[in-house]
């Protein structure tokens, strides 16, 4: 608690540093590689001294990888048989 208060005080006042809340605002752009160099540097400095944000980002990235791995369309085998009634309904409606 006291350590966190000291950290918060330092991050708010140290030149070139960002707070955890500001770090949060930059996460998406950092991962998309669209952060301007100056902001990227600040983001990476923050990560070096803030374990909570470092851990948060690692878990955030793992979440994205996990979602993509499990729900990726290409992974899933598709059924061989097609729903005949739906196929016929589409073909019948085509000429109307």
């Amino acid at each position, binding site marked *: 608690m006291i350590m*966190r*208060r000291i*950290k*918060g*005080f330092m*991050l*708010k006042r140290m030149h070139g540093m960002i*707070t*955890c*809340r*500001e*770090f*949060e605002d930059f*996460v*998406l*752009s950092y991962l*998309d590689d669209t952060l301007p160099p100056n902001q990227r540097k600040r983001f990476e400095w923050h990560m070096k001294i*803030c374990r*909570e*944000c470092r*851990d*948060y980002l*690692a*878990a*955030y990235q*793992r*979440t*994205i*990888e*996990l*979602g*993509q*791995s*499990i*729900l*990726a*369309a290409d992974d*899933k085998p*598709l*059924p061989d048989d*097609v*729903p005949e009634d*739906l*196929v016929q*309904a*589409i*073909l019948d*409606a*085509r000429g109307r």
Partner: protein
Amino acid sequence: MASEPSSQKTLGGLVDDAAAELLVRENIAWMLDLAERLLRDRGLAEDVVQESLISALRGLGDFKGESALKTWLHRITTNTAISKLRKLKRVAEESIDDYLPVFDQNDCRLELPWTQLVSLQELLETEEIREHVAKGISTLPDSYRIILQLRDIEGYSTAETAELLELSTDNVKVRLHRARSALKKLLEPALRGEMQI
């Protein structure tokens, strides 16, 4: 969206009955799968695919061949599914604030210490965890889930997602980040290796 079905050979002119049937048969399974992922409802997915394929067959003459046929059909299916969600008012605003990161009065992150972060390989080995992830994604309100699916899973860019959903790119970015953060929170027991299997 790589392989080109043989039915594309008929493009550029009128499509005869045999070619139309071939196009439907070659694409219906993945289109149903896509629509079901977006709508989370098999019946609605069938309606959307029916509407999409009829619209595609009628508009095939307008298809310029600038993208792959599958990409074109993917876009039509996604658009039709989003329209369906809108009609059903399932993209209405819902709060996910309870799942978002929290900060103290000094803007410091409040995050429980991570003693371990389970590797992707380990997470993918367990069927229960796969189900847990799918359930976690479907727990998100549609207004967030759909952005996560379009951007992270279906492979649309931020600009394309914004266009499909008629939102600004900034709005898409904010919602995508919130959706990912909320999903992280929902999946934490699995990510921390604390899930009872």
